[in-house]
């Protein structure tokens, strides 16, 4: 599964994208955030507050409870400030 990081999340983690292989007990977006949060300091900071992160599964907005099964691309980013 490809993970993409944008804006503040990208800067805090220090990576724009990477391949990840979460274990089978990582079922939801929220599970994945908790799992990623344990990969190191940048990750821990980026995922410290679940409510300040948004996620998209295959380029569609998702929620913490959304299931990640079958997803090819997951993205994490702060609340959007376009327009």
């Amino acid at each position: 599964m490809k993970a993409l990081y944008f804006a503040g999340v990208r800067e805090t983690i220090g990576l724009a994208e990477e391949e990840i292989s979460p274990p089978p007990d990582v079922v939801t977006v929220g599970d994945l955030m908790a799992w990623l949060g344990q990969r190191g300091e940048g990750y821990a900071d980026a995922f410290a507050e679940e409510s300040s992160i948004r996620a998209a599964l295959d380029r569609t907005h998702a929620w913490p409870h959304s299931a990640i099964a079958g997803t090819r691309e997951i993205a994490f980013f702060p609340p959007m400030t376009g327009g």
Partner: protein
Amino acid sequence: MNPRVAKPDVSAAVRVEAAAFDVGREMALLTRGRTDVGAVVSFTGLCRDEDGALATLEIEHYPGMAEDEIGRVVESALKRWPLQGALVIHRYGRIAPGEPIVLVITLSRHRSAAFAAAEFLMDYLKTAAPFWKKQRLVGDRPDGGWVAAKAEDDAATARWRLPDAPARD
């Protein structure tokens, strides 16, 4: 991306690009040769200099999802109002104060639909389109950080929610 809609005489387009756009030119292209359109509403969002503090804005986006998400919002608008056309352009990259950032144009027979749809599109773009603004400041400390999302933008989006539509967060 250019999601053509099956309805006749409705042209819908979404563009995510670095280059600046020309509002007059885009409006002329949308209405050219048409004699059935009564109302054209445009919204242009410009980069403000924040009373001289801002040097430039850097807009990051999620390529692919940005176009898809705006396309979905445009489809919603076309379902909700009797529009004859809709165009959304959103820029990314480095933008100087005074330059345009975003353009929404709506076409309809009557003004109320064109106004409502343009405002709806802007409210949704603000909260749902994957763009993030970083400020570069004038002076010794150029990093102005990422612009924070505003609660008022969420509230503006929420007012368009239909009674049966699920909340997004």
